[in-house]
Structure formats: C-alpha cells, structure tokens
C-alpha cells in the first residue's frame, strides 16, 4: 500500500512502465480478481463509498456520475471514454500518467468498463501528446495479447475493446459532450444537458466520460478499498491528487500529494518557493480557467470545498503563478486571447463576447485604454460569466481570471489607463505573462 498510488511506478530514470514491470508490481491483479468474480454493482458501491471526485476540473463525485447510467438494455454498445484532451493552460498531469505508466490507465478503464457494462472504450487524447499516444497504443497491444483487453477479458464473459482516438486539437474537446461530438466526426460543439451522456452519449448510447487521473484511481480503490482511499486525504476529500506549479518558482513540476495539502506546502515545499528576485503576486490554483487567489490564501488546503470558499476552483490542481514582475493585465489578455480563440462559436455570449473582452484588454495593455473600458469588461464579464448564460462552461471559466483579476489587481488596470502605458513594459518577457 503506497501513499502515492498514482505515481508509485514512476521512478526517475526507469522510463515508461511496460507490462512486465507493471505486472511484477501487482498490476492487473485487480482485473484478474474482479472481472467475472465481483458483481459490477458491488464494484460501483466501492467507488461510491470511496467518495472519489472527478479530477478533470469539476470535481463531480464519480460514483454518483456512474450510477446515472441506465441498466444494460442489450440494444447496442455502451461506451467508456477517457478524457485525455489535456489542454488546460498550465496543466500537464495526465501527460505524466500516460507517458510513464500507461497500463495504470488501461487497467483503470477495464475495471471501470466492467462496472458500467461498457464494451467499447476510447482514449480521446490531444494530438500533441505523441509520446503518450505511441506508448498507449503499445500498452494496449500488450494488454490485448495478455488477455486483459478484447473478447472474454481474463477468461470471463466480459469483453472490452479499447481504442486511442487522437484529437485534431481544440480546447473545447475537453468538454465531455463536445468531445463526444468530435468523436462522432461532428463539429466539436458541446451538447445541451440534459440529456446527459450517461443516457444519450456517444452515438446516442449510454456513455461515461472520465478524466485520465480519475480512471487511474479506480484500480487502487478496488484493490485497497474505499476506506483506505478516503484516509489518504488530509481533509474531507479522499485520495491523492497530482498537483503542479508553473511560473517563476524555483522548481516547476508535478507531484502526487494527499488531497487537502495546503497550497503553501506545494508552492514552498515541492516547488521550492519563488525564484530569486521574484515575489508572489497571485496564482491560478487549478489552471487558466480558475479565479486568481493571492498570498493570503496560501494556507488554504487544496480541496474542492475550501478552494471554492476562497472564491476559486480547484480545477485540475495545477497552479499558474503570477509574480510581481509580470503584468497581470498582459497575463489576463493572453489568457482571454486563448479562450476567445478556442470558443467553438456556438453561442453568442462566448463567440462574440470573448473576442470583445480580448480586444479591450489588449487595448488597455498597450496603453490605449479609456475610463469606460473597465465598465465594458465588467458588463461583459457578468453577461458571459454566469453558468446558464452560455451554452457550456467555457466562457464562464474564461471569465474567472478576469473577474478575479479585476478584483485583486484593479490598480494595475487603472495604472495602465491613466499612464497610457504598461508599467511592466520594461520587462518584455515578463509582460508576455506565463503560458
């Protein structure tokens, strides 16, 4: 029993874990012990009991999500999809898991599919992850050969075919229903919920979409039990989580830590604190689409509820650090440029509203801002920013760094407008922000 189950096979200089080493370290024993031996409903109860929450950003309880899948009707396929379209700026945790321990994801998917009576699985992966793509394909071939994938998994009646689908590259494909449309060969436009994918998903069939890290946890929960998983966390959320930090810190990186680890421990412990000569000005705790927090929040534990109470979201758990020499307006303008570019173009507030926000921010950043611009930003942020105003969560997410930026760094915005220039502009590289 490891206290860092997700990365226990990831050892410096060992390279990716092949099937032999994976099995030697206990891999696939959960498949052998579970498939055809444990009732899928009993497995579902374990997952529910573990209180595992989705690691993709929204933090929805996995067991509850799974319980909405209707009982098999025998009328066609049921799908399990791993969301490996990791395009959140500043986030690189799933990449680590897929590149260095691909069998962990595959085993987690086999067990999940068994629980859900899904017979076909897809790993929907961003095209830039070419190393992960080839390692996953290789690992799938090994697992098929070993009888863990394909017809009659481990000699049981359960069959599961797993495919890797390489995305053409849109941020919106990380939204689970846009992902399904894309997988069907359609425009990557999110669908309206309800109906939820559990009822009408891929090709109209029951479908579960989970983040890679979420699926990787399944094997360990089944092996060691819900109680063990819950106790891994330091607070109310169970399990461990891959946390990361990027920006002007001494050691940017990604670490597996217990849920509820205080932000300060991650930033000052794992990342070694700010780089010499830089002060912390703020940080996005869970990727680009989360609200800024500032130094006063450093002692908050990284947990879904506590981060929410602080006014942000845990998101993917990978922080982007804003230092005192980077222009916050420039950073936000850069982020909004990304979000405007990645809008799918379906609904009006997102499609038209984000480019306007981006234009106003660019204007302020280069010193052409006017007094009315902050009013436009605030009006647009409230127009675009509420869930329900838009078709999906893309635009509300995009507004999180802006609204929090206007709150914490308002003086910087005003300075840009009154001085008609960017006060940080002597440092051009910092001005471009952290990306």
């Amino acid at each position, binding site marked *: 029993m490891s206290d860092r189950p997700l990365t226990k096979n990831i050892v410096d200089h060992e390279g990716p874990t092949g099937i032999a080493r994976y099995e030697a370290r206990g891999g696939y024993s959960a498949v052998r012990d579970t498939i055809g031996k444990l009732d899928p409903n009993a497995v579902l109860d374990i997952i529910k009991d573990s209180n595992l929450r989705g690691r993709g950003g929204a933090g929805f309880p996995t067991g509850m999500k799974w319980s909405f899948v209707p009982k098999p009707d025998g009328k066609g396929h049921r799908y399990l999809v791993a969301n490996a379209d990791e395009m959140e700026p500043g986030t690189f945790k799933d990449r680590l898991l897929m590149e260095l321990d691909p069998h962990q994801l595959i085993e987690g998917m086999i067990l999940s599919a068994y629980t859900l009576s899904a017979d076909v699985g897809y790993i929907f992966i961003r095209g830039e992850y070419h190393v992960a793509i080839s390692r996953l394909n290789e690992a799938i071939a090994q697992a098929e050969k070993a009888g863990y994938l394909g017809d009659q998994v481990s000699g049981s009646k359960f069959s599961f075919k797993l495919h890797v689908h390489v995305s053409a590259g*849109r941020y919106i494909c990380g939204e689970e229903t846009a992902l399904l*449309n894309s997988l069907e060969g359609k*425009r990557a436009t999110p*669908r*309206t919920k*309800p*109906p939820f994918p559990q*009822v*009408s998903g891929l*090709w*109209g069939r029951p479908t579960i979409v989970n983040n890679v890290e979420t699926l990787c946890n399944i094997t360990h929960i089944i092996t060691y039990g819900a109680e063990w998983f819950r106790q891994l966390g330091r607070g109310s959320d169970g399990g461990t989580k891959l946390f990361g930090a990027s920006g002007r810190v001494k050691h940017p990186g990604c670490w597996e830590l217990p849920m509820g680890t205080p932000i300060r421990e991650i930033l000052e412990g794992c990342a070694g604190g700010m780089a010499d000569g830089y002060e912390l000005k703020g940080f996005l705790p869970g990727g680009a689409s989360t609200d800024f927090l500032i130094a006063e929040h450093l002692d908050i534990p990284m947990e879904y509820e506590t981060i929410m109470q602080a006014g942000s979201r845990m998101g993917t758990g990978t922080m982007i650090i804003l230092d005192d020499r980077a222009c916050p307006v420039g950073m936000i303008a850069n982020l909004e440029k990304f979000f*405007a*570019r*990645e*809008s*799918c*173009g*379906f*609904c*009006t*507030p997102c*499609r*038209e*509203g*984000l*480019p*306007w926000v981006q*234009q106003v921010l660019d204007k302020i950043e280069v010193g052409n801002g006017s007094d*009315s611009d902050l009013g*436009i930003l605030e*009006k647009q942020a409230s*127009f675009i920013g*509420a869930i*329900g*105003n*838009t*078709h999906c969560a893309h635009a509300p997410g995009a507004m999180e760094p802006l609204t929090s930026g206007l709150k914490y760094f308002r003086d910087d915005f005003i300075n840009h407008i009154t001085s008609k220039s960017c006060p940080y502009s002597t440092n051009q590289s910092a001005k471009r922000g952290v990306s």
Partner: protein
Amino acid sequence: MPNIIVDGQTIEAKDGANLLEVLLNEGINVPYFCWHPAMGSIGACRQCAVVGYANEDDTRGRIMMSCMTPVSEGARFSVNADNAESFRESVVENLMLNHPHDCPVCEEGGECHLQDMTVMVGHRDRQYEGLKTTYRNQYLGPFIGHEMNRCITCYRCVRYYKDYAGGDDLSAFGSRDRVFFGRAESGVLENEFAGNLIEVCPTGVFTDKTFSKHYTRKWDLQTAPTVCQSCSLGCNTYTSERYGEVRRVHNRYNHEVNGYFLCDRGRFGAGHVNSANRIPQAGIRNSDGRYDPVDLETALSAVSDLMSSSDGLIGIGSPRASLEANEALIQLVGEENYCNGMTDNECEMHQVILDVLASDLITPAMAEVEDYDAIIIVGEDITNHAPRLALSIRQSIRQRAGELAESSGIALWHDAAVRELAQAEKSPLTLLTPMADRLDDVATHSIRLAPNEIINKTIEITNAVNDATPSSAREIAQTLIEAKKPLIVSGTSLNSPNILKATTNLAIAVAQHNPETGIFLCAHESNSVGASLLGSDRSGEALLATKPNTAIVLENDIYSRFAEGALESIDHLVVLTPLDDSTASQADVVLPAGSFAEAEGTFINSEGRSQRSMVVFKPKGDIAPSYQLLTRLAGHAKQASTLRSELAARHEALQPITSIAPNEQFRIAGSKVARMTHRSSGRTAMSADISVREKRQPEDQESALAFTMEGNQQQAPAALRTYSWSPGWNSNQSIHKFQDEVGGPDRSAVDKRPLFEQTRRLTPYDISVESEFDPGQIVILQQHIFGSDPSSNEAEEIASLIPQPYVRMNSTTASSLALTHRGGAKCRDIEMMVLVDDDVAEGCLIYPSIPATTALAGVASTDFTAIEGWIAPSEAVKASLITTDGAR
C-alpha cells in the same frame, strides 16, 4: 395542461411545449433567432432569455433560455425582469459587433428579423470600437445570393439545409467568431429546397437573387395570395409585383399544405410571367402564315366568325387552367363538345386518383404525411415531380427518432438532443423506382425495378400483406402492417395507370389491417384533379375522334401533349395562352391569356383540396384572364365568382369551392383588403417621371382585394391576406401572430368541407401488366424539377439549370445497344450524352423530360444509336455530370 406564472400572471401552458412557445402563444413578445417553429430548439443564440425562479421565495432567479425550458405546474418566470431585459439587450449588442449595419442597401431590409429583434430589445448605443470580421462570399447558383458579413451565426441555415432538407453541400466552417456558412467551394447549391434559406435566415445572408436582380423595397411590392402552379401539390405562395412585373414569390404559410417551406421550382419559377415569350396581345394569322397583332375586339369577332362557320366545334380545356376558365369554356362550347384536355392515358391515371379521393381510403394532407411511420413509394419520382412532398417524407422518417426520444424522456422540440439520440435510426421507407432517387439517403429499402416489375413487385407485396411466408415482399409488407400509420405513395410520373392501380390495391390490402393507412397519389399538373372532375369520362383523343374542324384550346399545349395524328381534322384553331408554345404557333387566332398572377382561379390539388389563387396585378394592355375572354366570346364577361356558382350548381360535389375564400363582395368594416402594404412609399414615385399627379389606381371588380395601400389587411382571413405583418414583426416570423399556437393552423376560419365524401369502398382493380410495357423496350421519361414544367422553364434562372439531353441505362443495356459511357447517342436527330449507370433497372432507357427532348415521345430503345467520335459540348458534360450524382 400545466399552469405557470409569468410576471405574476397565470398562464395555461400547452403540454409538452417549451417556455418560448408558451410565451409566443400567449402573445408575449420574446425575441429569438435560432429557434424555428418547424425546427425546434438548440439554445445557440441565447436571445430568448428569461428569468426563472426556483420557488415563491426566490426573488433573484436565474437566467434561462426559454426555448430550452420545459414548463411544469407552478413554475415561475419573468420576461420583464431587469436582468432578463439587460441580458437580452447584451445578446443583440454582441451579435451586432460584427454585423455591417448595411440595412439601407440590404435586400432583407424592411422584412428583417434581426432588425425587429434589435428594436424589440431596445439596443441602441454601440460601445464596440473594434474592427469587424469580414468574409469572402460564394457563388451559390442562380437563385441565392450570399453575403456572409451580415451573418449572426444562429445556425438556422445549416440546421435547415442539412438536418431538415437533407442537403450535404452547405456547412458551418471554422470556429470562434469566424464561423462561415457556405459550401466547401463556390457552386450551385444542390438541394431542391435551398430557396427556403432565404426565409430561414433571420437576416440578409441568403437572399433571393431573382428578386435582387430587379430589386425593390419590400414594402413597395404589391402582393396577393396565390397558389403555386408548378406541380400538383398546390403550395400556398405570396406573389409580389412592381412595375407590372412579378418580382418574387415567397412562402404563404398553410399549416396543412406547405407549412413554412416551398421547393425551388415554385419559388423561382414565376419568371415566366415576365418572359419575352409572353403573348402580349391578340394575333390573327394572315395569309403569309405570320401573325398580325390586333386589338382584342377584332380578335374576338374573328373567333366568333370561326365559331359560327365551323363544321364541328370543340373546346379543349386544360389540367393547367383554373376551374373557372374550364367552366367558361364548357359554357361556350357546350358540355358535349368539351374535354379537359388530357390524353387517354392521363384520364385513366387521374380516374384512379379520383376513385381513391372519393373512397374511404385516407388521403392525408401534405403536412400530415410527416406523421406516418412507414412509407412505401411506388414508381414515383417525388422530388422531381411533386417536390414539396419529398420534404414532408424526409420528416416522416423521423417518427422513429420521436419514439426513441419519448422513451428516453427527451422533448421533441429539443432538436439537437433528439438527433444525437436517434443518430441514423429511421422509420421504414421503401422505394420502388427505376433509377437512383433523391430520397435514397433516407430510405431503408431502395429497390431498382423496371416499370412492369414495379407493378409485379407491388402485387407481390400486396399478396404478402396476408401471406406470412418469408420473402423480400413480405419483409416490406411487414414494415407497413407493423406501423402505427402506414402510407402508400405513388403518382403519375411514370405515366402508368397500372402503377396507380397496383398501388391502390396495396393500400386497400394494408387498410384492412389498419384503418389508419394512408394513400397519397401525385397528380400530374396544378389542376389535374379539378379538370378530371369536370370531365375525365372523355379524353382529348375521344373528342378529337369526332373529327371536329374547329377547336378552341385553353392554356394547353396540345401539339406537345397529343400525337400529331390526333389533331389532323382541325382546320381552325383558336388558342388562349399566356406563353408562346407549339400550339400557339399553329393557331388562326391567339388570345393573350393572363398568367396565374393576372387571373383569379380555383385549383384542386393531389389531395383533393380546392384552393383559390388571387390576382396579383392588373395585366398590361389586352391581356385578360382566360375566363373573361371566353365569357366575352359567349356574349358578356362574367365574374369568376359567377362562374364558380354556376359550376357548383351543376356539380353538387363542387359546392365547397364557392366558400373557400370570400368573394368580391367581402368587406372588413366597409373596406377591401389592400394588396399594397400600409408603408408603401413608392407608389406616388412610380410615374413621377411622367407626371407628378398620382395616377388613379385601377379598380378590382373581381375580388375583395384592392390595388391600393388603403384598406384592411390584418383582419383579412388567410385566403385573402396579402402579406404577413404584425406590429414589431416585419419579417415572415410574424405568422405566429395569426396562429393560436406557434406552428399551428391559421386562426382565421376557412371552409374545410371536403370536396369528396370519402365513403365509397373501393374494390381492388384488375391489372394486366403485359399490355402496358414491352420488356426490353422500356423507355422512361425522367422528370426534372428544373426542366419538366413548361411554365417555370421560361424563368431565366430555372432555364439555366435544365440538364442537357442524355440517355441513361445500365451497363448490360448499354452493351446490347452498343452505347458507351460519356459517348454520344442519337435519336430522331437529337444528340445526347450516354450515361451508363448500374443504378438503373435492367432494360430501361431513361431520358429527361425537358423541352429539348419533346420530339422523342414514343421512341423505342432500339431507336437510340451510337454516334462515332462524338465530342460532348462542354455544357452537356457539366449538366450530365451533375445528373450522374443524382443532383441538379
């Protein structure tokens, strides 16, 4: 029916409706773009936002899209809440960021849904200072203009074109604020219903090119309700005029017939009214064989002389002319000397249609076809022969999707979700046709058979209805008997009475299992059913066999319709026609008949529905409605309403035609119904270059419509309403103000008494196939939506899409005739391209029914011979290639 509370008022909501529909039904103005009554909701534009409250104590509520919100008992909403209003204003503000504000030069102006919605939300001041996105526009063919800069990205066009009409050459490209709606590359839009994009688009991206060519402000048009003449379905249209020319045709909503959509032949085919081939005035043939133009009085007295000196006078009526015109001819020549102008074969086919209409078999209205959950089409090329019906059949295959949605608890208006759930699932649709069909993509069984085999197969399926022995016929029969509502469709495009009889027998057999069974038989022309009622007992051939020497021909190109020999005895010919044709060129006297836009008339469509088409504008010079010319010949001009009453007095069954629309006596508060809009601004300017004094408008003695802007409009019943308008709603979306519920029937009362009693029990027909087709010698005339209707062919834009002559056959037939793919073939001096296509039934030769091939009537397959070394004219290649793809 749940009660909901909106801004404090309790509203009884329709079961299963979404909130937007409920609000519109209640007369509450809520702006919207992406929702469409025929296409449901997707929630893209976010324009119809309202505030929804969780309960009585919730005072803040949250923004929700009314089109995506189901209603339930006690639910509370606000349309007028400040946050709802400011949200809706922001939506328009954001939509307008990239809109060019080119209203003064935009074809949509004055009828623009975007203008209406912008005014409705009160957005006025712009804060945006950035650049606007611009696009390169595409050539989309002769009908539709493209101006992408005006686009507000509501997705209605692609949803209509791809999802509703089944087109595959219009898509959304790109993403973010640069979504482009167009084709992969410039080219003619292939779908036969593309013209509806003009009305579906809420602004001026897709515009009517035929209208733009001689553009006028829409409020300066003079408009009347008309009935489309280009096939037998009788779609309801508005036809608009200015300066004595028809400027455009657009959809006139009829809940039971065409709903919100028309086909492109109907929409763009009215150019024949302005054609250079019009007969502008009367003509008498002189001794040189040329025509001397004469005034109408002279011509009429010449006709009277011919009539009085004739040795056997007959009147040849027309299935393309109104009941009134045919009745006037009957009164002139006497019933015993009249025929309806159809051939033996046509009479026999349409007699089957009359039998069915009068029987207890159900003939659904065209819109009701969408409710049938299993369909078989027997030997009819719906898309080319009765196009609008194909669009309804395309919706019917979604019955299966509806069932799936219902079982999954998804509302039918939730369009995207229903399509995502159902994917490729469709209700059974069987096609028995001699070649590839435009409905193949939605068919579950597409079977290619020669016409005689179609009859045999239909007989087999009929037998299999009551014989459970497994067979391919039984499989098809099963789709029909297992359906909740099966529909059997056929028509006259293969010119085979036996196909219609076999189809009817099948319907009789299926109806014994299921009284809900429907049958829809497509007649051939706009008034084929009406003309048949007036005299299907005697064909043209039968009347001509009496060897008359003088004939008066009403709007009928008899020299194309009948074999030359049948017309031998005619020495003196009087022709009433709007257009010069092969019959007019044989006439002694030609009389200038009014086109559909210049003559009131009643027409009976394939489903047995009688409909009134009104005069749009007073014709130029001596041009007059045929019924006026004929009644003047008979002594004194009669009004159309008089002829209808007299006709109804003789034919009890036709009584309902007198009351389908009010007659000329009708007034609303003492006023007639105005053909011009109340905003008509150009009337005084029209002749200002000649005189600043406004000319007196002509009076209309014939109808309750007036050639002015003065008069009532809004309260007019649907049959007389000259345009759809309501305060704040200048676009066609205003139609919902005339409906009790959106997408429902027009509120104004219309006489719905059926023409047919529908009680008679039909006994199956005896069918002898051998007599009709000679196997191996089967030459089939292929109908073309653009090319097979002589009137619309005169419209320049339609004419540009008529295919070049071709002959199509499968490879076995081709090699037996020594013909090669893309090589040349010749028949009766007509050269054409050979298309070898294995999707043609064995032994069939197919050539197009177009003006260039009229001389081929009656040829045998062995009459087609190869031309050595033939090089296709490039135009022929283009047209034929398009035809090969099954598209235009």
